[in-house]
C-alpha cells in the first residue's frame, strides 16, 4: 500500500502542474497562447528525439526531417486529397514518419561513431532538399506549402488559440507519459544498456542493432505526430522548418535540459523556443548571434560545469551518461 501511496504522491505535483497549465488561457493573450502551443510542440519533438539521442545514445542530427515527413504527409492528405478528420491525418502522419524513420535507421546504422552523426545530418538534409525541389511537394511558386488548417476532431469543437493550446497540452501530456513508460520499461533499460556498454549487451544476448532500430523508429513516430501538429498550428510548413538547423536546435533543447533524463529534453524545448522567440523580437537581424552563443556556452558548460548545463538534471533526478555511440 505504501508504494502505491508514494507513487500517487509523486504524481501529484505533475497533475497540479498540468491542471494549472490547462487554465493558463484565462491569463494569456492569444499571441502568448500560440507561442506556448508552439513551445509545447517543439518540446515534445525534443523529448521524442531524446528517446534515441539520450536514452539509446544515438546522436542523430536529422530528427527534424522525420518530424517533417509527418508534417508534409498531413499537408498532402489534407490539401491535395481533401481529408478533414484530425484522427485520420494524425495516424497517417505517424505511420509515414515511422516508415521514414525505419529507412533512416537502416541506412544510418550502417555507420558508427562520428560517422553516424554525419550520415544522419546528410539524410536529414536529403528530406529537406526533396521538399524544396520536388514539384509534387510544392504549392505554386512558394517554397512553403500552405493551406493547412486545424482539422476537425468530429466533436463539434470550436478551434481558437486557447482551445488549440489546451488540446495540444493534453496530447503533449499523453506523449510525455508514453515516453516515461518506455523509459521505465525493460525496453528503455535495453536502450540505455546498448548506449553504455554495447559489448556487454551483445554478450548478454541482446541484439543491440535491433534495439537501436526500435529506438529510432519510436522516436521518429512520435516526432511525426509533432510535425503534423506543427503544420496544423502554423498553417504552413517549409523545407527550412524541417532542415538541419531545426535538427540542431532540437539537440540543443535536449542537451540544455539534460539529455537522457526524464523531463530534461521537454523542459529544454520550452526554454529554447521561448528564448528564440524573444531573441527574434529583440532583433531579427542579430538573433542568430544569441542562439549561436547559447550553443557555444552550452557546449563549454557541458564540458566544464555539467551540473549547470543540464540545470534540471538534479531537479528531475535522472541519470545521465556521456557514453559515445
Amino acid at each position: 500500500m505504501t508504494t502505491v501511496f508514494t507513487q500517487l504522491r509523486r504524481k501529484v505535483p505533475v497533475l497540479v502542474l498540468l491542471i494549472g497549465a490547462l487554465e493558463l488561457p484565462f491569463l494569456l493573450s492569444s499571441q502568448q497562447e500560440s507561442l506556448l502551443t508552439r513551445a509545447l510542440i517543439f518540446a515534445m519533438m525534443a523529448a521524442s528525439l531524446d528517446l534515441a539521442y539520450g536514452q539509446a545514445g544515438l546522436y542523430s542530427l536529422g530528427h527534424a526531417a522525420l518530424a517533417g515527413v509527418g508534417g508534409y504527409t498531413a499537408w498532402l492528405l489534407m490539401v491535395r486529397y481533401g481529408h478533414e478528420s484530425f484522427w485520420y491525418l494524425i495516424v497517417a502522419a505517424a505511420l509515414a514518419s515511422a516508415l521514414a524513420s525505419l529507412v533512416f535507421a537502416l541506412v544510418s546504422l550502417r555507420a558508427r561513431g562520428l560517422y553516424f552523426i554525419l550520415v544522419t545530418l546528410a539524410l536529414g538534409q536529403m528530406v529537406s532538399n526533396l521538399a524544396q525541389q520536388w514539384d509534387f511537394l510544392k504549392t505554386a511558386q512558394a517554397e512553403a506549402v500552405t493551406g493547412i488548417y486545424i482539422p476537425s476532431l468530429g466533436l463539434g469543437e470550436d478551434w481558437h488559440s486557447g482551445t488549440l493550446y489546451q488540446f495540444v497540452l493534453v496530447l503533449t501530456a499523453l506523449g510525455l507519459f508514453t515516453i516515461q513508460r518506455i523509459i521505465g520499461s525493460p525496453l528503455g533499460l535495453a536502450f540505455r544498456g546498448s548506449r553504455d556498454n554495447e559489448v556487454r549487451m551483445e554478450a548478454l544476448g541482446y541484439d543491440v542493432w535491433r534495439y537501436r532500430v526500435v529506438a529510432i523508429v519510436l522516436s521518429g513516430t512520435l516526432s511525426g505526430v509533432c510535425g503534423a501538429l506543427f503544420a496544423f498550428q502554423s498553417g504552413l510548413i517549409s523545407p527550412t522548418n524541417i532542415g538541419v538547423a531545426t535538427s540542431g536546435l532540437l539537440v540543443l533543447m535536449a542537451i540544455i535540459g539534460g539529455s537522457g533524463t526524464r523531463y530534461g529534453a521537454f523542459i529544454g524545448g520550452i526554454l529554447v523556443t521561448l528564448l528564440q522567440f524573444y531573441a527574434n523580437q529583440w532583433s531579427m537581424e542579430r538573433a542568430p548571434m544569441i542562439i549561436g552563443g547559447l550553443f557555444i556556452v552550452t557546449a563549454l558548460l557541458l564540458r566544464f560545469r555539467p551540473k549547470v548545463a543540464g540545470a534540471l538534471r538534479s531537479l528531475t533526478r535522472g541519470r545521465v551518461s556521456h557514453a559515445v555511440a
Partner: protein
Amino acid sequence: MQIIANGISLGAVLFLMGSGLALLLGAMGVLNLAHGAVYMVGAFVTSTLAVDQGYPLVVAILGAAVICAALGLALERLFRFIPGRPNEQILMSFGLIYVLANLAQWIWGPIAKAPFRISWLEGAVQIGGVSVPANRLAIAVVGFAIALMLWLVQDRTRVGAMVRAGMDDAEMTKGLGINLDRVVLAVFVLGSAVAGIAGGMGGLVLGANTNQPMEVLLMALVVVVVGGIGSVPGTLVAALVIGLLDAFSRDRFPEMSSVMLYLLMAGVLVLRPTGLSGRTA
C-alpha cells in the same frame, strides 16, 4: 562537355573541403561541422579583395588562405576544450555556424555576392578542340595541385606519417613521444587554409552567401562518407564522382538533383560502410 567541366570544377572544390573534414575526423576524432563556415569566410574575403578592392586573384586567394588559417587557429583553441566529446562538438559546431554566418551578414551585408568576375578568367580555353570555361579550368587546376601537395605531405613526409599514425592508433602514437596535440593544431590550420582557398576558388562559380556554411558542409560530408577517411586519392575520387553526378543530375533531373548525392551516399553505406578507401573513424 559543359556538364563535365562543371562536374570536375565542383569536384575540385568538394575535394578541398572534404580533405580537411576527413583529416580532422579521421586523424583527430574532431567533428568540426563549422568547416563550411571557414569556406564561407574564404569566399567573402576573396570577394572583397579581388572584386571590390581590385587586387589580383592570386593575392586575394592567398589573403583568404591566411585569414582562414588564423580562423582555424582560433577554432582549434575552442575544440581543444572538448576532445572526444561528440555532444559538445556538435553544439560547438552549430554555435560557430550561427555566429560566423551572422557575423558575415553583418560585415558583408545580407545580399549574396554574385560569382566573381575576373577579367583574365572570362571566356573559354580550347583544349583538344573542346572549349572549356577558363574559370572552371582554373578551379580544377588549383584543386588538383593542392590534391597532389596534400598527397605528398601525407604519404611522403614525417608530419604525414605522424598524421597517419594518429589515425591508426592515437594512444600508441602518443606513447612513442609524438605530440599529437601539435599535429591536431597543424591539421586544423592547414585544413582551414585549404578551406579558405576552396572558398575563394569556388566563389568564381558559386559566389558567396551565408547559406554556404551548411550547403558546402553537407556536400563535403557526403564526400567524406563516400570516400572514406585517411586517403587523399579516395577523397579525390569521391569528390570527382559526386561533382560529376551533381552536374549531370542538375542537367537531367533538376527536381531530384540534390537527392541523388544522398542516395549515392546511402548506397555506398549499405554496400561498403567504410567508404571507398576502407578506413573508419
